[in-house]
């Protein structure tokens, strides 16, 4: 599906331009995000012709590795820095999706990223929404990009 490609492209671009960690998209999956054991999830709402929620789910090690790479310093605790870093990735991937959909006439507006830090976090959307989950692998571990949406 086109949306999956847009999501993968947007994520690869964010990592290539500001994080400099090699990531590889895996096949989109039906697995729940719990298989990734996320300790930090950043979510951002999408409104307009595509209504949804986009989320980046990271286990601790991945969130810390990404944050350290982005800030150019060693970050060892899941706190403000990690929240801002992964939230910014969610924001930029959502922005990339918005730009990719613009030529098709689909307009989307972004809310602000919100981050949840904890243990055994579970997230869900409305039961009627379509879900896309793309796991990415990297030298620091796996993380997941998830989009739940309905088309207006």
């Amino acid at each position, binding site marked *: 599906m086109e949306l999956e490609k847009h999501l993968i492209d947007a994520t690869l671009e964010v990592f290539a331009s500001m994080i400099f960690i090699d990531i590889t998209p895996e096949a989109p999956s039906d697995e729940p995000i719990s298989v990734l054991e996320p300790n930090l999830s950043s979510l951002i709402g999408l409104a307009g012709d595509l209504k949804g929620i986009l989320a980046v789910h990271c286990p601790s090690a991945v969130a810390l590795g990404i944050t350290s790479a982005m800030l150019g310093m060693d970050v060892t605790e899941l706190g403000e820095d990690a929240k801002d870093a992964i*939230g910014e990735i969610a924001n930029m991937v959502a922005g990339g999706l918005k730009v990719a959909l613009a030529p098709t006439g689909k307009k989307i507006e972004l809310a*602000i990223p919100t981050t949840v830090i904890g*243990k055994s976090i579970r997230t869900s959307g409305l039961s009627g929404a379509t879900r896309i989950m793309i796991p990415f692998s990297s030298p620091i571990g796996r993380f997941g990009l998830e989009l739940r949406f309905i088309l207006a």
Partner: protein
Amino acid sequence: MNSFAEINDKLIESTIEIFTGMVMMEISVLGEPLTELGSLKKSITGMVGLAGTRKGVLAVHFPRQVALDVTSNFLGLEVSEVNEDVQDAIGEIANMLGGNLKTILSDRGRDIQLSLPSTISGDEYSFSSQAEVDQVILPFQAPSGVFYVEVELEH
């Protein structure tokens, strides 16, 4: 926090209205708004994004028992664990609160759209947005516990 002084009262009013009218649950405001929530234990959060001329997030944080009671009342069915019904009910509460917040904010001619609602649950988690937001947390007393309505808006 000045921008919130104006909307707090309306938000409290509309929260009580939703609970009295739709959930059939009596609730009341519990003291002054908070500025920080700390970590949430055995809870479920419903959230919805606001986009357009005002960008932000509305979230409602329920301890599990309150979430189960809200779902039972709202859907008219007994639930004893956090399942899909509970997630849908809590997401829908966030959606209704977001709809009211949108009206409160766009009284001033602001064009705002809502995202899809989403829920977050876990044994222990903290919830926060980016740094540059105005934030308010309103505590409410429900029969089986305290829950919070949180709004974060970009400047």
